[in-house]
């Protein structure tokens, strides 16, 4: 969630009231934003740090926060944004060249006339662009904004795409001209801009905007030209917006003009620009300021809110959330509603319903749980089984631990003296080597837990019942979890009989008797388990056995292994004392 810093005194002045911290906190709470911090006493002028929901692009600046709260408080009507054409009726024209489709095909723009900037407004304008770039525009990859002093430029403009060598201009805050290739190298050193370079670096052509004199406006999404840079003295602002996402292109245009047209000579007016882009059917005038007209069902709103409001009452609530609405003339239930250009977050009547609920006050809604459902509780079968084993192990005097599911490749394989069996799910983008794969065994976690607890008295007896993960090509997710039970004994002697005893105990509790007589085993008539010495590189030779489970009428399956860990394994996990472990798959008991 973005956090916006606003001047506290200026905001309270805009809201017409000096709030106490608690009062403002309360207002934020009711509206659904969050006062994160008040820097009074730490910096001058004091700032309020306000957390904004990620879909409220109309509150990413001081102007938007003040306007939305003022409308919510009923201190201000929602501004009516309108287009203002030049007196001669001749719109500025921008021609979009088809080559732009290779790199960044969508273009939008607008003109704000007679803007009165001061330091605070100027900073807010820059900061809003930055917030939009970071959030909605996904680090400029989807949308990029450029702003220009229109007086330094001459229309009509062209939006083109050219090989980098052919693009040459002095970028923002630089006096030296360079070509785009040089520029990409130059900005590699710029901590802010370097992250945007990959968006176009390897493209054959780079996007570029020119005026009638071939003066560069900007090379989106990287940098504006120094020539047309806006200053505190700038009066007429040209905003260029380029995008790979058409919807977000217009949202960004709407937000920028809605927030800053209030400073225009004639407030809330925007001068449109004619875009000529026939190759992709995007020729039009931008921006389109008409609100989105839709309908919302009053019974839907009432039913979810548990209220019985009239349509007029609902309209009054929606007005506080910037919507303009009125009872429909053609229906008893519907409201006709105009959603302003600022409210791009409204997608469905559910969003309008939520706005009505916020305006009413979530905490004022009648609280009554009208459930008529009746089902029967049930525990997940694998969890029931796991709980039996957990309780039996704890009753036998073992302590349950909860290591992590992710581990390093070495911990899961090399440190257990095992070769990679290509069963593990691997992660693409871990931040540390601690998390490379999903464990295929519970042992690494148990051994790490012992390592971290070496100060604890010995013997240590720990266990875990939890899932490991393995690849499985047959399934949709190409992998599955397997519920395992594992235990480790760590002490001055090996504890081999101890883990063996724990195995016997758990098996007994799972109604699985020891099978020792070969004839019964052969007949497959008994349900039970038996163990058999095996070779396994994780364990000390001669002190390791496989565990087999035989279900009546079926052939025996290997479900686990136990033994004394190989001294090399102990060394890998930095364990000075002998350790015996037990690990088995519980799924066969389902």
């Amino acid at each position, binding site marked *: 969630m973005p956090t916006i810093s606003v001047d506290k005194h200026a905001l309270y002045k805009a809201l017409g009231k000096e709030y106490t911290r608690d009062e403002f906190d309360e207002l934020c709470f009711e509206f659904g934003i969050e006062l994160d911090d008040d820097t009074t006493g730490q910096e001058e002028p004091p700032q309020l740090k306000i957390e904004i929901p990620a879909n409220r692009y109309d509150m990413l600046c001081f102007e938007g926060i003040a306007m939305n709260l003022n409308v919510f408080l009923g201190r201000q009507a929602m501004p009516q944004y309108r287009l203002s054409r030049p007196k001669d009726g001749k719109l500025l024209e921008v021609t979009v060249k088809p080559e732009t489709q290779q790199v960044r095909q969508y273009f939008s723009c607008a003109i704000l006339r007679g803007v009165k900037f001061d330091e605070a407004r100027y900073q807010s304008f820059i900061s809003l662009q930055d917030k939009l770039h970071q959030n909605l525009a996904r680090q400029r990859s989807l949308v990029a904004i450029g702003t220009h002093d229109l007086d330094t430029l001459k229309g009509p403009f062209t939006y083109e795409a050219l090989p980098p060598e052919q693009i040459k201009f002095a970028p923002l805050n630089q006096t030296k001209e360079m070509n785009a290739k040089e520029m990409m190298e130059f900005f590699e050193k710029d901590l802010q801009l370097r992250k945007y370079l990959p968006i176009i670096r390897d493209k054959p052509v780079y996007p570029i905007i020119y005026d009638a004199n071939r003066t560069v406006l900007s090379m989106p999404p990287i940098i504006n030209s120094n020539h047309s840079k806006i200053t505190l003295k700038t009066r007429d602002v040209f905003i260029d917006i380029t995008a790979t996402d058409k919807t977000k292109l217009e949202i960004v245009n709407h937000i920028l003009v809605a927030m800053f047209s209030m400073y225009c000579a004639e407030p809330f007016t925007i001068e449109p620009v004619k875009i000529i882009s026939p190759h992709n059917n995007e020729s039009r005038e931008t921006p389109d300021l008409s609100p989105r007209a839709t309908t919302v069902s009053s019974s839907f709103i009432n039913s979810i809110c548990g209220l019985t409001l009239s349509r007029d009452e609902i309209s009054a609530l929606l007005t506080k959330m910037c919507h303009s609405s009125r009872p429909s003339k053609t229906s008893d239930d519907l409201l006709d509603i105009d959603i302003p250009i600022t409210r791009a977050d409204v997608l469905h009547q559910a969003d309008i319903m939520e706005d009505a609920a916020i305006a009413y006050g979530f905490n004022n809604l009648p609280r*009554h749980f009208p459930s*008529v*459902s009746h089902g029967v509780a049930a525990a997940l079968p694998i969890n029931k089984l796991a709980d039996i084993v957990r309780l039996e192990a*704890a009753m036998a*005097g073992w302590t349950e631990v909860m290591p992590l599911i992710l581990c390093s490749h070495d911990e899961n394989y090399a440190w257990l003296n095992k070769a990679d069996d290509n069963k593990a799910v691997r992660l693409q983008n871990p931040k540390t080597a601690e998390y490379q794969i999903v464990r295929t065994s519970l042992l690494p976690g148990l051994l790490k837990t012992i390592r971290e607890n070496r100060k604890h008295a010995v013997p240590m007896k720990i266990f875990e019942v939890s899932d490991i993960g393995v690849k499985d*090509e047959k399934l949709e997710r190409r992998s599955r979890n397997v519920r395992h039970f594992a235990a480790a004994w760590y002490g001055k002697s090996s504890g081999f009989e101890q883990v063996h005893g724990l195995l016997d105990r758990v098996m007994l509790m799972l109604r699985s008797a020891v099978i020792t007589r070969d004839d019964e085993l052969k007949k497959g008539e008994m349900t039970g388990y038996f163990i058999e010495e095996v070779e396994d590189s994780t364990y000390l030779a001669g002190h390791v056995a496989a565990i087999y489970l035989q279900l009546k009428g079926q052939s025996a399956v290997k479900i686990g292994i136990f033994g004394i860990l190989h001294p090399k394994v102990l060394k890998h996990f930095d364990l000075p004392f002998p350790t015996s472990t037990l690990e088995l798959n519980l799924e066969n008991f389902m």
Partner: protein
Amino acid sequence: MPGQRGPVPVPLHNGSRDLTLDILEALEENDPFQTQSQFPETPQAEIKAALDRLASRSMVEYDTQDREIVVLTAEGQQIADEGSHEYKVWKAVKASGKLSIKELPQKVAAESAKVGQGNAFKLKWIKKDGDSLVPIADSVQDVTRELLEHVATNAAFPDPKQLKDYQKRKLVATQKQIAYKVRKGPRWAKEIPVEVTDLTAEMLEDGSWQTANFKPYNFKALGANQNSGALHPLNKVREEFRKIFFNWDFIEMPTARFVDSGFWNFDALFVPQQHPARDLQDTFYVSDPPSSGPPGPDPIADAALDEMEADSATFSTSTSKSSKLDYAKYASDVRAVHETGAFGSIGYRYPYNEAETTRLVLRTHTTAVSTYCLHRLAANPRPARYFSIDRVFRNETVDATHLAEFHQIEGVIADYGLTLGGLMDFLASFFKKLGITNLRFKPAYNPYTEPSMEVFGFHAGLDKWVEIGNSGMFRPEMLLPMGLPEDLRVYGFGLSLERPTMIKYGVSNIRELLGHKVDLGFIESNAAVRLDKD
């Protein structure tokens, strides 16, 4: 430790000397007696230990006496033995009749000559005669020596005022002495009887328990260590949450599936493909296996759900037969609601990338499984309640409050006619079970719920409102592509298992609660979980 078998005498001495016997003998003759006079040479600690052994058996009683005593310094002792310096000088002069001053140090020690001469003059025992000394007194009384002899026997001056003067002269010093006044106790005996440490089967059998002399039990010590096993604190809290859910007829969802597809984890939840949660910075993507198959039924999950829902079916009033789920249509409807808008939504209107739907991720929330269960519900839409508590994964930078893994508690209620206030009412009941009675709800944003509410509870200990969970009603854009009817509304709510546990136990670092760095001692000593009590 089991008691030793049979009555055994309790050894009451260490080494060669049996002090307890000496004390008993002394008391037989002198009742009461003072230890410092009876056993002046014995160290106080030994006396105390012996007395305690006897006193614990009520054989003796004693009072402790703290006092200050006066002892002689080495010089003081010498004076007590040989006489004062002035006495020595007088004696030497008297013996010679007339003694040259120069010769005096040869007759008496140099120190005595120096100090004693002056004192002997003052006392008028001797006088000067030219270069020599001659006696005046025929006989003298050596008061200093007599006083020091008194102190040596009585450890005090007859007149306490004298102490200061003698301390100044470095002839005496004071010491703290702990002494005991010992008398016979109610169970006095001249010998310690044979004692037994424990009641045994043999004693019951031969009746000796009736006369046996039991060794007193030390009620101040802890009992024997039980060497017991222990369940993990997080799992204990988890179990309490499960019980709450079961009491409200929730069915536990099949969450045994760490890996899920972009479709189930994000797309089906109406999380747009450009949402920051889908960034590499936030989500663990899987490199191997490379991608998922198309969305379809999960036989493992379905088998578990069939088994669990069998009982609910007998209560179901629905007569409609289950319809077959069309996963391909579901996938294309999900795409439509993102890309072009559908089901009354204008959608996000962006180019939907099929490759994103089959990217495998480590699930970032168990809501991926809730989505599966809700879609499955569309085969036979009806009221239902599901919950899960299981591990989820976030590609977080690890710190005191963030781990790459944690547990999510999630509840889902599907029913007709649900209201937003109903969710608040339900959550109030839910959190009441955790001892949190005061709730407030803050409007919030979540891509798959609308309305969305953050749940705040008043924490009396911290004296502030703390966020304790998230909740909302699932969006139509999520539910309608599943094929659920419009009037079947669905609540969703969730919280982490770790956060309430950390608040409850005052754990400030999540790594002390989950993972291999957790202290086994903490697990072993962690009290039973009673969410509604403490």
